[in-house]
């Protein structure tokens, strides 16, 4: 490289990307490709016919789902509403529970370091557990029904919400808080008068965002017996009643899109 710098003759133009970078990128590319081929091989090893057979088969099977049976819509409307209600209740409870947790997990408010680290670690572990696994455990504990589903949603969304809100809290303007403290406000006064007004719009927006996540999660909780429309979907699939299942899937699709649309509009208006 030193010789290149000394004599920049036209025929010895240094390459745009250094050779070392090129080597690194090539190695990473082949490693990624290697793992990909291994994964493809691994995931298809129990499959008869392999990839091409599966894709060919796919279209013949997908035909069984059509046309969806529109007659079942009145029968599945009740469970669908129940599913939405599960998400509403779970989001509300999570939004209330998240406030102390988020404050404890914010570095700039919780100045007592061990407590902050403890809360953060707890939230990180909470977030690694998938919602359906929580639902499986709670169904084992409370039996089949709506309650284990709501509980699973609360715990699942608590992890996400507390993390997002603690990050919002960490990014607030600290000057009002210091001013409050300097003029003698105690911890609760500082939080109530200086912190909450600053984070309230983001808080509402994030709660709505988590509500969207909960709607998506709640429609499938029934697959493991935790109430809602997923339960019906699972039954219909079990009976190989594909047109009915397709109708349920379409209804889920419509509800998710409508709720996401409304929630996005509200969030845009908020921020």
């Amino acid at each position, binding site marked *: 490289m030193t010789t290149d710098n000394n004599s920049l003759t036209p025929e010895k133009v240094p390459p745009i990307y250094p050779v070392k970078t090129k080597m690194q990128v090539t190695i990473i590319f082949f490693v*990624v490709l290697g*793992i*990909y081929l*291994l*994964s*493809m091989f*691994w*995931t*298809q090893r*129990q*499959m008869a016919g392999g*990839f091409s057979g*599966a*894709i060919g*088969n*796919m279209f013949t*099977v*997908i035909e*069984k*789902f059509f046309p969806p049976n529109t007659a079942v819509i009145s029968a599945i409307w009740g469970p669908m*509403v*129940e599913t939405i*209600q*599960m998400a*509403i*209740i779970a989001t509300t409870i999570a939004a209330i529970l998240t406030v102390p947790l988020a404050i404890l997990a914010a570095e700039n408010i919780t100045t007592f370091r061990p407590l902050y680290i403890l809360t953060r670690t707890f939230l*990180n*572990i909470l977030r*690694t*557990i*998938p*919602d*359906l*696994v929580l639902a*499986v*455990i709670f*169904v*084992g*504990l*409370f*039996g089949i*029904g*709506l*309650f*284990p589903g*709501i509980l699973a949603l609360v715990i699942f969304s608590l992890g996400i919400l507390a993390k997002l809100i603690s990050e919002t809290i960490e990014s607030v303007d600290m000057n009002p808080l210091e001013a409050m403290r300097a003029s003698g406000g105690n911890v609760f006064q500082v939080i109530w008068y200086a912190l909450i007004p600053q984070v309230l719009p983001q808080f509402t927006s994030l709660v709505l965002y988590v509500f969207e996540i909960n709607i998506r*999660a709640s*429609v*499938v909780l029934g*697959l*493991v017996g935790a109430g809602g429309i997923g339960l019906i*979907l699972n039954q219909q*699939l079990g009976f190989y009643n*594909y047109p009915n299942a397709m109708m349920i*899937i379409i209804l*889920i*699709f419509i509800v*998710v*899109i409508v709720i*996401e649309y409304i929630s996005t509009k509200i969030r845009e208006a908020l921020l």
Partner: protein
Amino acid sequence: MENYSLPPKPKNSVYKKIRNIIISLLVIAMYVWTFVSINIDWGRAIERAINNFNRVIPRLFNPDWSATGDVAMSMLETVFIAFAGSLMAAVIAVPLSFLAARNMMGGVIVSTIGKWILSAVRAFPDIILAILFVVAVGPNAFAGVLAIAIGSTGMLGKMFAEIIESIDMNVVEAMEASGANKIQILFYGVIPQITPEFLSYAIYRFEVDIRASSILGIVGAGGIGTMIIFASNNRNWNEMGTILLAIIIVVTIIDFASAKIRRKIV
């Protein structure tokens, strides 16, 4: 002595007041509706919980170490599903994102259609896609790969399109002015700008997909979810403890590694 007084309070407009009242009424109505019409059998749930508590909770925290080998193999399969799925999604999402980005393919119509396709894909929960693919290609891990691939395409395509829309168009214009053709602009003007963020989002999505693929087995699409459903059907809560531990460890490691790599790239 000057007379200090507070500045006058800002007046709320009538429109705003009415709007706030309507919003609060709607929210109250929603809650009344929810809590009145939902029926939870509290008595039964509490009774069951008291009966089951000792059979479930202590055993969850007492993992069955003899199942470690099986759990590790299933977890490996989960990681493979997530990897293959998110890589496929990352590749499929690139052309779709160019279609959906407003500053690339020209027309607003094309971009709107592209965005509609992407949001339609995003509306399906992963596990519903997995159900469809299990019916289509049979109950195996490859159904999981396809579900993850399609599910992630929606989100990645949207993110990629936003990245493309945020690039510095001056570079592209300068290249156009100096006579570069479309392919040259793509390779020297656009791709260098988007690559780091594309990679970063693809790796982030891999993180999300690990979580998603760990439950796909519940509907038969391979991975550790298969063991979850067996353990729960057999009431084998010790094994469930092992599975839970495996998920927590693997997800934590991958989150950590992914955060490190992403910080290096961007």
